[in-house]
């Protein structure tokens, strides 16, 4: 029952080394697991952000387009800063095309791009020209949150009736990446190929790992055609 006061026997060197080895091994595994957990957390949060943003942007574009008379897309192949200009219905009395109503445009640097919604600066009569210049619009409002960057914003439009310049069918591709995703997981070097819009654009490095990106491709038809010869 009595423990001697002078029992000060320690560990041997072998024991210490062994203990340290085990401890290091376990620590490495723990750190790896924790890093993995953190990556998953970021990826999950990123997916949630991109989903939310993709839905918001696509809903806003859809709603605005349904209320527009016709739509003109602007493609900037150099920067990828494309835009969708929406026009309001022509006056049925004079058949004068009303000026630009609003625009959805992509702007920003190569690493951080934001979709903006702007309204017309002045109620101009357009007299049939089909200029789509985001700089003519005012009152910008950003549609995307700071947590995401829009990698791809690609509109196409078709005219269902003559004249061919007045397009009423809009199709758009959106690809939104999370800025929470680790940079190395997203490969932005792939150029967008307009001839094959469905299979290109920014992609995840291996397509399976923790890459937070949401792509949406959808279409919408504008409310009405331009009043013709009324």
């Amino acid at each position, binding site marked *: 029952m009595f423990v001697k006061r002078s029992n000060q026997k320690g560990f041997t060197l072998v024991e210490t080394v062994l203990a340290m080895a085990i401890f290091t091994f376990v620590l490495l595994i723990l750190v790896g697991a924790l890093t993995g957990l953190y990556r998953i957390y970021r990826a999950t949060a990123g997916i949630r952000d991109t989903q939310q943003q993709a839905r918001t942007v696509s809903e806003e574009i859809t709603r605005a387009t349904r209320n527009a008379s016709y739509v003109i897309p602007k493609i900037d192949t150099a920067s990828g800063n494309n835009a969708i200009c929406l026009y309001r219905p022509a006056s049925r009395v004079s058949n004068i095309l009303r000026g630009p109503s609003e625009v959805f445009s992509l702007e920003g640097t190569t690493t951080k791009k934001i979709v903006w919604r702007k309204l017309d600066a002045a109620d101009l009569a357009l007299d049939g020209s089909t200029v789509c210049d985001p700089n003519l619009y005012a009152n910008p409002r950003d549609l995307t949150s700071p947590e995401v960057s829009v990698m791809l914003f690609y509109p196409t439009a078709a005219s269902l009736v003559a004249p061919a310049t007045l397009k009423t069918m809009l199709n758009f591709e959106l690809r939104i990446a999370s800025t929470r995703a680790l940079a190395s997981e997203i490969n932005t070097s792939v150029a967008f190929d307009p001839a094959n819009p469905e299979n290109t654009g920014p992609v995840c490095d291996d397509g399976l790992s923790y890459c937070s990106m949401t792509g949406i*491709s959808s279409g919408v038809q504008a409310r009405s055609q331009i009043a013709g010869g009324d």
Partner: protein
Amino acid sequence: MRRGFNQAGDTLVEVVFAIAIISITLVSAYNVANNSYRIGVQARERIEAASVAQGQAELLRAWRDQNTVNMAPNQGVVPSPAGGFKVTMSPTGVITSTACGPTCLVGPGGRYQLRVTAAEVGTVFPSTSGPDGVKYTIRVEWPRIGGTGNENTEVTLTLADRRLDRTNIECDEVEKCS
């Protein structure tokens, strides 16, 4: 009977046990996180697939709207090959229908297989005048994440054939016919 100088530490068995418990806890946490990530990816894929289907529905409707002036009888609204098809819009804005079987890839990253099939509905008019409308089934499939087989979602869309109004009514102006 408190022993003042008991300097005996944990035994190796105890340490190993503790490590095992920590590991199990961590592995479970990892699994939970991984599952939540997988569910997030599944949700994203459903959204992407739904947007593909919705875009296709809109294109079908646009096709119907642009073809109201062509009054060929006994013809579906959109050319509908038996094996399925898809409607696409080129960058220059031309809407086309392409025949394709189960392997027509569309959508973000080309991961989604889209197939539209058509069935004529309602023939109240004489058969020469064609169907009242067409019911389209838009089916989108994509590979299941972390598993075998495909996930799928289906959207049906019934479009009235507006050409019937013109082919079966004997007067030119709609106002006089009502």
